[in-house]
């Protein structure tokens, strides 16, 4: 295991290369780099990395990604397959912006800011600084968050002003191209009071077999009464190493729904924290993971109830075949005085092979009173009766198994509000099965 990065030297020169970058971002990079080097690599005995494949985290084999040639760029833009209708689309390839399309004229008229982060950090410095990586990383990946801070170049800043509702989803594509390339995508979203928006991030590799490294962070901030649907589709190459650090802050009466669809990478770790900081706030945390081959998915979550009368509901489903391995560690934490909390957490593992392994660590820490908290974790196989029902109707076994599995995962997808997004995710899951 090595924490030294092949990309290190380039980073040290990076700030001078781009003089337009806001100074504070440059300082942040330097601080991030210092922290990254100072913090220890995760250790086998670290509780937050229990069951994690820590010895597979060798960063020395990855390089800073180079800009892609024009021909490749056009190819990748052509391969972006999103929804039939969206409010806008941004495409990044190897951490460089290659396309920005705004389909909905409304966005600008209503004061919605939607810009690449490097631009937004300069042009909207005040609001950007107030939200950019301000939430503590508590689930184990401090070191990788520091690395992200040091290296971040790509991603979007989305600001939705007070009372503005954006009807159609906004889509962002991140492509990784070339063997050993690395990417540090960022999503910073600020939804002001009573606003409403849907954002979808797609993470994809140009070559399904190329090794790569991704270390992404998303920061979602919901003002009072805001409503957010956030979807991430992680479909990196089957040889990639991926870290994704997600933070959602839910204010009074706001409602956040996030959905992580995990399909790609060899080793993928996703940490998701929902902080309920205002009374009446609600957070729905959903994930679907389709794990096959020797893939390892490591998901860590925290439902942090800091104020009374808050609600959270987590549903994670994993389907495992071949030698796949999943880890789920979730915690519902109810802070003192966060009375009348209503929190739920459920993880379900469907094991389709004898070599698959599912680890579940669903946790509760309740320090308040008058709460309703429960969690459940199940691991099992396909129900013989369900299978028999389909077989008896002439459906061949492989198709029947696929149907039952799709049905198992569909319960999560159905929780999304938009028909178009649901159909899109179902399509992606079916293609992956």
């Amino acid at each position, binding site marked *: 295991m090595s924490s030294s990065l092949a990309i290190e030297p380039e980073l040290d020169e990076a700030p001078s290369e781009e003089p337009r970058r806001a100074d504070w971002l440059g300082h942040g990079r330097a601080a991030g780099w210092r922290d990254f080097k100072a913090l220890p690599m995760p250790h086998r005995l670290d509780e937050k990395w229990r069951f994690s494949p820590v010895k597979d985290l060798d960063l020395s084999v990855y390089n800073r990604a180079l800009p892609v040639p024009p021909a490749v760029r056009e190819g990748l833009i052509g391969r972006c397959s999103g929804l039939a209708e969206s409010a806008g689309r941004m495409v990044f390839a190897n951490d460089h912006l290659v396309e920005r399309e705004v389909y909905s004229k409304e966005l600008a008229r209503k004061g919605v800011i939607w810009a690449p982060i490097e631009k937004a950090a300069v042009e909207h410095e005040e609001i950007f600084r107030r939200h950019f990586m301000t939430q503590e990383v508590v689930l184990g990946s401090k070191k990788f968050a520091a690395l992200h801070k040091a290296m971040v170049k790509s991603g979007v800043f989305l600001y939705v002003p007070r009372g503005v509702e954006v009807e159609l989803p906004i889509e962002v594509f991140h492509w990784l191209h070339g063997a050993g390339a690395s990417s540090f995508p960022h999503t910073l979203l600020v939804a002001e009071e009573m606003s409403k928006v849907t954002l979808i991030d797609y993470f994809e590799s140009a070559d399904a077999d190329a090794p790569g490294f991704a270390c992404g962070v998303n920061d979602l901030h919901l003002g009072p009464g805001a409503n957010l649907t956030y979807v991430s589709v992680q479909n990196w190459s089957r040889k990639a190493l991926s870290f994704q650090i997600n933070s959602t802050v839910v204010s009074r009466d706001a409602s956040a729904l996030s959905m992580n669809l995990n399909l790609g990478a060899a080793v993928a770790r996703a940490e998701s924290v929902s902080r309920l900081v205002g009374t009446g706030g609600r957070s729905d945390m959903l994930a679907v993971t389709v794990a096959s081959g020797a893939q390892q998915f490591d998901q860590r979550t925290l439902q942090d109830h800091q104020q009374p009368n808050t609600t959270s509901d987590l549903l994670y489903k994993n389907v495992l075949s071949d030698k796949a391995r999943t880890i789920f560690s979730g915690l519902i934490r109810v802070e003192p005085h966060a009375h009348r909390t209503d929190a739920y957490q459920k993880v379900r593992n469907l094991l389709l092979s004898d070599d698959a392994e599912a*680890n579940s660590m669903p946790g509760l820490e309740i320090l308040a009173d008058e709460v309703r908290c429960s969690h459940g974790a199940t691991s099992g196989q396909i129900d013989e009766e369900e299978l028999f029902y389909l077989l008896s109707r002439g459906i061949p076994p492989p198709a029947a198994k696929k149907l039952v599995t799709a049905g198992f995962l569909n319960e999560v997808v159905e929780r999304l509000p938009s028909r178009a997004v649901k159909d899109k995710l179902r399509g992606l899951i079916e293609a992956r099965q």
Partner: protein
Amino acid sequence: METDNATLDIDRTVGDFAYPEVHVRDAGVGLAPRTVNYISDVKEDPDWVREFRLKALEVFESKPLPTHWASKDLEAIHFDKIRYYLSPGTETKRSWDDVPEDIKKTFERLGIPENERKFLAGVEAQFDSEAVYSNIKKAVGDQGVIFVGSTEGLKKHPEIFRKWFGKVIPTGDNKFSALNSAVFSGGSFIYVPPGVKVKHPLQAYFRINAENFGQFERTLIIVDEGAEVTYMEGCTAPKFTTATLHSAVVELVAMKGAKIQYITVQNWSPNVFNLVTKRGLAHEEAEIKWIDCNIGSRLTMKYPGVVMKGRKARGEVLSIALAGDGQHQDTGAKMIHAADETTSNIISKSISIGKGRATYRGLVHVPKHLKNCKNNTECDALLINGQSRTDTYPTITVRGAGNAVQHEASVSQVSAEQIFYMQQRGLTEAQAMSLSVNGFVNDLVRQFPMEYSVELKRLIDLEMEGSVG
């Protein structure tokens, strides 16, 4: 329900008295190879036991405190200020009449001889480091059942003892099992021959009388093919102002088709650190059931486990924990499935009162290529007021497509509405609260042997005042 003046009076006073110390054997304060050698000398250990102890001491010293996951309160244990061996220097007696007066009085006040006459098949009483009394009813002894202290067991029955001793819980299992392996003294050794079903429970009673003392009993129970036994243990200590340590190791072996039921009612005084390792090995079609009630102590860390080694073996843990002010009950269960068609069940109920903290920590492990293994886990926590805390930390690993594991946990509280409902039907607030709490644990307590469910209900007889706002 946010008022702070909740009071809960559990009857802990029964055990809160101490007699002057009359120890003849004393290993002194602190832990070093000479302490271990002293214990070996006094007990006239065979060489292999002395070596086992000294090696365990090294393991103990090499292991860090598990504070990376466990409570930092462990740091309050000063291993160098504890006395590791104290005994009156007398042989274990077969009759209460021969037990020294003070010690006999202690156990009489705790009601032990009386219970023995009433419903027990055998009793062992341990006072600080050594068993002072041990006896089984003649009819049971005639069936070939062995029930003696661990020291006597390893000397008189080495052929059975040595075969299983330290096999279920190896020295290096954890820091405290290593400590126990170094300085163990007392505890029971039980052997039940094939086919013998011991009708009445065997009981051991552990008593700490001395201050700054550590009790390290070691229990080994082997139940041969098709045999059955129920073992019950109770424990008390006076309320000293300094910390006392109790660190036991209990190993159970159930041979083919055997059944072991092990019942603990832990009611240590609130200055006792109770750090216990308990595990059973269940062979084919055997059944091991732990019934674990934790009411006393300052910090308890105890996760009884069953390794289901043979086909169709079954493991069960029923756990009740009650955490009052200043108490942390960190309890749970471990279920290791190591053969096809093994089933396990964990039911845990905890109650946190005042500033108490109850933690469930569990492990369920189903390794590769096993078929038709099933585990069911249910954890329910009850919070009595706004300052109490409850945690649940299960760990579940399942490999392969042929098994089913389910875990459920919930947290609830006695609601003001429930209390109001009962009060307007004429119950006092205290009665209403007591009824609610007893209702919460009732379905579990009902599965206990009669004598224990009565005892437990009495212990959980709450006197609540002004706790509902």
